[in-house]
């Protein structure tokens, strides 16, 4: 009797994560085909399979059909169940890859999520767990998701061997608040975490020093913590990284990070990170470029009111995300210049009418 409902079609392996997330949130089935059909190793990668498994754990009643060659999948979403879960990530991607979609889903689950996830905590491709803890989660607080939202870094794990472990705790909300965030304010403080595992602990101090050499000119309120993990907690491979964030008076956050590369001195890593932060600051807006999709998603899911947010120009991910939001939720954003009177304004104002998404999974019983 159950009809499959509407199926949304996509092709290509791009933007795999947010399409799955949108499908689960909207309840529309998604069919993705032509996943690397011409590659010498066609089909889904191991981390994508692992992500699908993670989503299967987080949800109840999700049906995932993968074609024989692995180049096409059909996902019929179930409900987001939450609860206490454990997941082991493959070493090809870091925890950030898996945690980002979960962060988007977790507030709408039936039970509060308590996810233990193991793997690489920091790498070049995805947000490190430090940034997720210090930047991504505060973004959820803009939407009224705050009590009991926590990310605990139990162990750190650098590539290639990993061995890190984090716990993600997320409460359940009925409905997210409408965002109206137009004025970013001015930067009032800079914070950062530098860590070095299985290398000389002085490395983190060297990174901090280098970073301060750039940032000190702007503001005195800079604290860059040196986070030390020892023994069992420091994972299996050596590595170090610096993640910094700048907070404005209206608590907009900009963040950047740089990770260790073979043959690069820690000072250079520190400089890289702080310069990346400066370019992020220059982009301006209320939300930094890495979190555009998260904020836009939550705006889409807001109550049936106009939500507004000022951001810099969209990234490619964001553009595709906006299109996908339209195909899943029928919501189009209004993207206009933030300040029509100012001809040089490069920032954009994203406004939309929320869908009035109510967490249907939450139980009253």
């Amino acid at each position, binding site marked *: 009797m159950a009809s499959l409902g509407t199926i949304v079609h996509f092709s290509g392996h791009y933007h795999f994560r947010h399409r799955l997330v949108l499908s689960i949130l909207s309840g529309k089935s998604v069919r993705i085909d032509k996943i690397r059909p011409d590659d010498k190793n066609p089909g889904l990668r191991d981390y994508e399979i692992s992500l699908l498994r993670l989503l299967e754990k987080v949800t109840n009643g999700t049906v995932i059909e993968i074609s024989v060659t692995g180049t096409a999948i059909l996902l019929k979403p179930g409900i987001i169940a939450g609860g206490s879960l454990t997941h082991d990530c493959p070493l090809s991607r870091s925890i950030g890859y898996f945690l980002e979609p979960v962060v988007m889903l977790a507030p709408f689950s039936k039970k509060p999520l308590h996810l233990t996830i193991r793997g690489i905590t920091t790498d070049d491709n995805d947000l490190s767990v430090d940034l997720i803890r210090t930047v991504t989660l505060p973004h959820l607080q803009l939407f009224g998701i705050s009590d009991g939202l926590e990310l605990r870094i139990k162990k750190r794990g650098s590539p290639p061997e990993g061995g890190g472990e984090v716990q993600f705790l997320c409460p359940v909300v009925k409905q997210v608040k409408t965002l109206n965030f137009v004025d970013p304010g001015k930067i009032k403080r800079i914070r950062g975490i530098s860590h070095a595992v299985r290398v000389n602990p002085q490395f983190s101090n060297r990174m901090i020093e280098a970073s301060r050499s750039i940032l000190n000119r702007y503001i005195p309120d800079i604290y860059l913590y040196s986070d030390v993990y020892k023994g069992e907690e420091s994972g299996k491979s050596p590595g170090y990284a610096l993640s910094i964030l700048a907070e404005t008076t209206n608590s907009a956050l900009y963040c950047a990070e740089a990770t260790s590369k073979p043959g690069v001195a820690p000072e250079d890593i520190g400089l890289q990170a702080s310069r990346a932060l400066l370019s992020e600051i220059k982009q301006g807006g209320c939300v930094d470029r890495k979190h555009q999709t998260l904020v836009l998603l939550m705006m889409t899911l807001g109550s049936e009111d*106009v939500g507004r947010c000022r951001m810099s120009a969209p990234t490619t991910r964001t*553009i595709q995300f906006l299109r996908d939001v339209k195909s899943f939720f029928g919501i189009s954003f209004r993207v206009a210049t933030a300040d029509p009177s100012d001809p040089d304004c490069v920032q954009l104002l994203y406004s939309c009418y929320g869908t009035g998404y109510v967490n249907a999974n939450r139980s009253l019983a």
Partner: protein
Amino acid sequence: MDDRPHKAHRPSQSGAKAEKKAKSKGKEKQQGFNEKAFAPKSGRRADRQGRRNVERDQTRLHVPLVNRTPDDEPPPVIVAIVGPPGVGKTTLLKSLVRRYTKQTLNEAKGPITVVSGKKKRLTFVECNNDLNSMIDIGKIADLVLLMIDASFGLEMETFEFLNILQAHGFPKVIGVLTHLDLIKKAATVRATKKALKKRFWTEIYQGAKLFYLSGVLNGRYPDTEILNLSRFISVMKFRPLVFRNTHPYVLADRIEDLTPREQIRTSKGKCDRTVTLYGYVRGTNLREGTKVHIPGVADLDIKSVQLLGDPCPMPNADSERRRKLSEKKALVVHAPMSDIGGVMYDKDAVWVNVPGNFTRGNTDILQGEGEQMVMDLQDVDETLDAAVARSQIKLLGSSSKALSIGPSNQDTSLDDDDDEESSESEDGSESGSEEELDSEDEEGNSDEDGDEEDFPLGEDQLQHGENTGRMSRRTLTRSVPSLKGKEKQNVEYAESDSDLGDDDDGAWGGKRVRFDAEDELDVPSDEEELSDEDGDQDEGSAPRWKVNLSARAEAASSRKPRRKDWMKLIYSTNLSPEQVLREGAGVSEVEAVEEDEGDDEFFKIKKRATGDEETLDMSKEPLNSDDLKQWEDEEMLDSIRHLFITGSSGSGDNDHGGEEDYEEEGGDFEDLEGGSSKPAGEQPPAPVDTEEARVAALTAKKEALKRKFDEQYDDPEEGPNQDFYTAQKDEISRQLALNIAEFADIQDPAARALVEGFRPGSYVRIELESVPCELIEHFDPHYPLVLGGLLPAEERFGFLQVRLKRHRWFTKTLKTNDPLIFSMGWRRFQTIPIYSLDDHSIRMRMLKYTPEHMHCYATFYGPVTLPNTGFCAFNTLSSEKHPGFRVSATGVVLDVDKSVKIVKKIKLTGIPFKIFKNTAFVKDMFSTALEVAKFEGAHVRTVSGIRGQVKKALTRPDGAFRATFEDKVLASDIIFLRAWYSVQPRKFYNPITSLLLSNKEQWAQEHAMRLTGAVRIAQGIPTPLRADSTYKKVERPHRRFNPLIVPKKLQAALPYASKPKLVKAQKAKDGVRGTYMQRRAVVMEPEEKRAVALMQQMRALRKEKVQKRRDKKEEKREEKKKKEAKEEEKKESKDKERKKEVMKTIGMKTKRDAEKESGGSRKRRKKV
């Protein structure tokens, strides 16, 4: 004496008169609020009064709810007229329509919309007696006129309807009592009114409004009463209902079938139809792409939505002015399903209904406006050519005013496709009117072919949407013969015209030039920009255009910072995200256009993007070392100083400086253009700007400081005012204002619909595809047709857990696995619930039947509905054969899931076949060793209460196992194992498709799932009777228990206390010797004999004596009792008398006291 002047009047200063005057003056003063009158007498009373007032204030507060219905142009309020048959619903409807429109309704079908006030419209719907209609009406009605036959009393349908309302968010209800004239005696009327009011109030709330309508005059209720009723309707305020405030919905007031006739003919009418429905959007914004559910039909996809002109517009200043001129046309009514009105506006056509037969020239019969219109169209005496020529000339010669007579131009152009001139002029007029509307954000965009194709279409729609409005229609009475078909052609023409524009750029340029010259509007259109860019192609066109070119180019360059329209780039192009961005990065748009035009190039780019396997799905962008290098530059580092709080505080200069830096990086395109020719007017404003900016910044700073000060010092005083409630309300109103303001500047309705959908209150035409043909074939306007919008979550199916209570008026209990009809959300469906109760929070335990007077859980398979949604359930919806109360249960949705955990108890029994000490072998519980293995370690119990455990399977009898117990079990004991068996609700979902039937009430008989018993009766199958299930007399054999025998040896060894005490009373029985005293023989002497006899006689005498004495005493006691009773009675009567006396005096006293207290005032009153 005569000329002596009269003495002036001197008011007396003292005496009775003066006193009287003073008193009256004082009274005058007291006419307002007398503070003293309600002042408390004592401090305690004051305290109590204060607390009471606070409590009352609290009860007045309600949870602040957002009202999504716009205040400026709300949709018509749906007023449903509900009641049992024969109560006078239609009469009331006719009276009300007459009151508002001054038109008489012959036959009321479907919704009737009227204007009732300055800012208010009403849609009247009559609800028939079908339960399906009542459910649908109950979900959409804002106000219910609940009609009650006073001569009969409240009927079952009324109660059912009230229960339906309660389950779906209670709308406002006004009771209307009719048939009061049928009651003869005035006293009976009064009594009936009182009784009915009391009942009505208990059903709704104390003080609910109840109206009384007396008899019918001229087929209508008396005008004064209807007037009163309409006043009550007009002042009614509506609190938003949660479900309707989260879902868009449309009450369709018109339905059209768009399916090609040929297709219907070939499929013999059985093909799926394409249908358009018309109505006002209500609830929340209706977005394209939402799924809708039509109760009684199915879930359907919206194919398209178009905004139409309001057929029943609210009065504005203009229409009001006209109203005074001709009172008759003033009162608008929109009822396409009924027989009034007569003119209908579609997207691309106008339909005129002519009732009966119609002859031209029959002037004595008053013509409707529609007929007049058609006749005007027929009264043309010039040819089309002439009209074309005339219109052309007119257009060329006239200014913008001439452009407004678009229809004539359109009409003229349609005959002649080659007539470029006219087509141009038409286009000019179109774009002209559009440009007046368009804001500047429309201008600098549209360089792709894609949006070129899109937007002119949108404009066309806009055009037609506007033309369909009542206001603009009056201009349509042109003297050019154009009938419906021709108009259609016209539309096609317009579309093809925009297409034509794509491949023929020269034509576009020419067109636009013409428009510029005539219109003198300075706002450039999309096409203008296009022509700017590929100006080289435009060379072949008119010379006038060339004259304009340079000026326009200058104008274009002055608007230098060309913003891209991100919305268009993102939503209405098929550029890849990378391409969109690259355009933003400063690649000149000409290039971009070229890129798009070359198809092969387009594909190449895409290949490059997709073929690149290295692009991972990652959230961090790789650090670009070149990008980072720029930060080694000190100037660059300083350029963002203003973004920090330590940087120079937000002065305009610094900001400006910062942004200039951006320009330098990204805007080389601008520099190129900026060097060429800036208009002289552009440069001076810059310094002025900075000056102004400085002033503005200063004021802003002052403002901020003031606000800060206020926050710091004023807040403690304002704090108590701004309590939670008002804060919430303020927040809501602020958000609503923002909602309106944010998209207010979007003029293009298509673009507006894209971002915010269709607002409540807009009249739309909704096109649906693959609608079952039965909806059209068996359409009956008496049944409401509702389109309920579904949220994304509600399209899914799953298991719903609800809290449910059987209705106390429903006579039967509800049984698990019996089908039940639910009305939940928009839907009505039949499904099979399983009832359960929470068993100590450990498990959900299945119930066979719903409990009495108690809530229980029910779980069933159905469409997902948001938790906290109310519902009501029915066993059947048909009125035949079920005279009782039909609402069988009500409740609320608690949980939605994809799986359920409900268990029922199961007891597995076995018997011991071999018993050791504490161990027994049990058989007959399981059939295989595997089953036993599954239950190893499970607890078992005997009937006598000995507990034990399953140990291990035995090899020999299959399914037997070894079990240990806490004691030795008897061979006669039954051993059982309590377990829980999970039950799954059946996946059965049967939507009620009542609207698809010719007889809408037949659904239950034809399509509903029936109970097994009903099927058996229908099929004539006897109920199977299993021999095991029959009741037999229980025969319990008498059980004999052997005496406990303790062996002698053991007895001997036992201590005395434990020895069995087996000594019985010794009695002489047959064969057994008694005691000595019993068995000795007694032989008496004669003397002894005598003595014994004497003793016996004496004893007998004494016995008798005692008896006599006793009897006498008894007699005496009786007598005494009687005496006492008499005395008691006397005493009581005396007491009573005395008490009466006392009470009398007390009463007198209190009366006197009371009189004393109020005596003064009464006396005074008497005096006055």
